[in-house]
């Protein structure tokens, strides 16, 4: 009898524990339905007043997305409904401003899809590390988010509309993905600022205005790069100079090179251009130098010069011009980075550290002084391998036929 009873109690206890575990399985405390979260698509950080910041979030409106995709919805008849809205709040730091923003939103702020962070120029000049601390410490923001600096207020960029993409944030993300300019993720920025050189370059955004017949349209455009040293933005380099940096960092992709061969009127354009770039550091006693070795190849996409590239002696002239063109681009930016900005955004410090760890340790603390003195040598080999679907320039044919 007692045996049977204990058997029953045992069964009962097992039953109870199974029932009990049902409550644990659902994970109730952290139940987050998609209609409970406000998805942040982009974030802007601006300076406000003396010691405060203004945090602006671009938030996705799921309701509007559903409406615009269905043909019957939307009374506007062809009018594009905005899919995002922007809210902002000021605070002493990001976390403070964020808590105030949360008080205004009925849904919980969700960072997981935020792929764009923009710093206003003013705050970038003051220092960005304090804000990076939040972005890196908080478990939600992704390391793959792209970083930008904007001319003027960053909030303004979030408020812009987009014609092709869902939001201005998406536009910027796609622009960066094309790899025409710099591509800097949160992880890269963190890495660059803690690296030997402690300098980074971020894409610099400007608001452009296109005047239409009825009303003008504003859109964001990447316009060169902002140079950040240690913590603060110290300068700006133009789009042309940014391309030079891309060459040195071996990041050029989908990029057209146009140059003018000497004394031959007209330009030649190459696309695609592939390149292999090596930075070879050299130390000779006290002289530090860097050999920039570029091997590049291109395909002619347009030939407006008076040179027929199918003629091999002409080809040599063109290749020489190509080579000089690249050298000019690279020289131009190195000169500016070394002497004007004095910020090693090219990663020279890393190369020296890797190749000469012992010598590096001696200059580690005064790299700022050493960097401008590093001599640059060039070894550029440029070739043109293909000339496209036609050989001679078009205008040649016409002239030939006339004769």
């Amino acid at each position, binding site marked *: 009898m007692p045996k049977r009873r204990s058997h029953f109690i045992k069964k009962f206890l097992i039953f109870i524990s199974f029932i009990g575990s049902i409550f*644990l399985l659902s994970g109730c405390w*952290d139940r987050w339905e998609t209609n409970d979260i406000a998805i942040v698509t982009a974030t802007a950080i601006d300076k406000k007043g003396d010691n405060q910041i203004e945090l602006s979030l671009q938030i996705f409106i799921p309701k509007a997305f559903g409406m615009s995709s269905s043909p019957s919805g939307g009374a506007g008849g062809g009018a594009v409904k905005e899919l995002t809205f922007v809210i902002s709040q000021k605070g002493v730091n990001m976390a403070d401003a964020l808590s105030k923003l949360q008080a205004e939103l009925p849904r919980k702020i969700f960072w*997981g899809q935020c792929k764009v962070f923009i710093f206003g120029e003013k705050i970038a000049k003051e220092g960005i590390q304090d804000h990076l601390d939040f972005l*890196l410490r908080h478990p939600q923001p992704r*390391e793959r988010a792209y970083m930008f600096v904007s001319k003027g207020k960053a909030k303004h960029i979030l408020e812009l509309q987009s014609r092709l993409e869902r939001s201005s944030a998406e536009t910027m993300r796609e622009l960066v993905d094309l790899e025409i300019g710099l591509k800097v993720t949160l992880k890269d920025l*963190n890495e660059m600022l803690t690296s030997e050189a402690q300098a980074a370059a971020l894409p610099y955004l400007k608001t452009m205005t296109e005047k239409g017949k009825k009303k003008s349209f504003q859109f964001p455009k990447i316009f060169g790069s902002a140079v950040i040293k240690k913590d603060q933005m110290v300068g700006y380099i133009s789009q042309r100079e940014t391309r030079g940096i891309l060459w040195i960092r071996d990041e050029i992709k989908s990029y057209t090179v146009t140059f003018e061969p000497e004394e031959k009127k007209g330009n030649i354009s190459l696309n695609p251009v592939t390149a292999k770039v090596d930075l070879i550091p050299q130390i000779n006693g006290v002289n530090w130098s860097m050999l920039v070795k570029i091997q590049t190849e291109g395909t002619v996409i347009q030939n407006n010069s008076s040179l027929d590239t199918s003629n091999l002696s002409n080809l040599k002239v063109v290749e020489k011009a190509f080579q000089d063109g690249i050298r000019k681009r690279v020289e131009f930016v190195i000169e500016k980075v070394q002497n004007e900005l004095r910020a090693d955004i090219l990663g020279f410090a890393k190369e020296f550290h890797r*190749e000469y760890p012992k010598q590096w340790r001696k200059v580690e603390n005064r790299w700022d002084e050493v960097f401008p003195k590093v001599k640059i040598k060039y070894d550029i080999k440029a070739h043109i391998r293909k000339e496209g679907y036609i050989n001679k320039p078009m205008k040649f044919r016409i002239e030939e036929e006339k004769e």
Partner: protein
Amino acid sequence: MKTVKISSLQMAMLMYPTIVATAILSVPNLTATYANQDLWISPIFASIIGFLTVFISVRLHKLYPEKTVIQFSEQIIGRIPGKILGLAFLFFYIQSTGGITRSYAEFIVSSFLFQTPIIVVIVSMVLLCAFAVYGGLEVLGRITQVLFPLFFVPLFLLIILLSPEYEFSNIFPILERGLLPPIKGAVVPGGWFSEFFITIFLLPFLADKKKGSKYGILTVFAVMITLVVVNLIVLFILGNTTSSKTYPLMNISRYISIADFFENLESVTMAIWILGTFVKISVFFYVVVLGTAQWLNIEDYRPLVWPIGILIVEFSFWAVPSSMAFIHYEITAFPFYSVTIQTIIPLFLLGIAFFRNKNRNRNKKKETNSVYK
């Protein structure tokens, strides 16, 4: 004890997650703190402790084939000192289990279940492990056999999916400041490699005893390779920022982005971690329960599962006040504590046992000789 048998492959599959699970998440930053870009060399040095521990464990097992350390330490150094030593072992394993449970829960609460009270995470895991332990070693061995591919394959997948992001030159300069920094970095993982002493609790139950030492050494080797590879991929991606991250593997697994839609794979890391920790806690739990039963001379360990389960939950709270304190403990105290209990004391035990046996054999020889005289 009833005739519980596991295969030596099952033992290897139990041991591998037991070491890797905790190490994999935090080892890159702990080693990078000392070794910087040489962090991948540290596990190689640390594995020496692993090989040594397995060697000691197998040797002790050969001297006392049917017994665990709790039982034979009484034979080696006498009843009372043996009991005291057994208590020290038990205390170490209970405390470690508490610590592991806590660090598991801290990770879950700080990265996924932000609102969930930590006690719920801890209790549900300990409850699950208690069921597994209650089932016995055979059950544990078979669960692991099922779970092992789920543990290993995602890890492998992670390595492949991240490959477009690798920057191999992050590895240079190799051995910038000589061998000392990687050796310093090896101290913490050394503490984990020392946990291979747990094999002493599994070896008596092997069906194929001859393969025991072979699989033990193979497991140490596999763990070493895994840690080297994990450290390398973290280095290739995070570079010099590795030491500043709390969970580097999390950071890199979210960095995966393939074709714009295959992203945000941190849940893979979470899955690996939970599976691994489940095995790890179960193995430790089993060791504690079995050890306690043997220490108290109880035939069946099952009645002890629930009370000790509660004790483990308590220890997970008593262990540390905060996650920072836990990392501090892991760097400063744990390696030395762990190596002392699990490698150095067993080494002494082995030494004493060895000389005793020699003496006994000599005495026996003398006796036999005298008989013939």
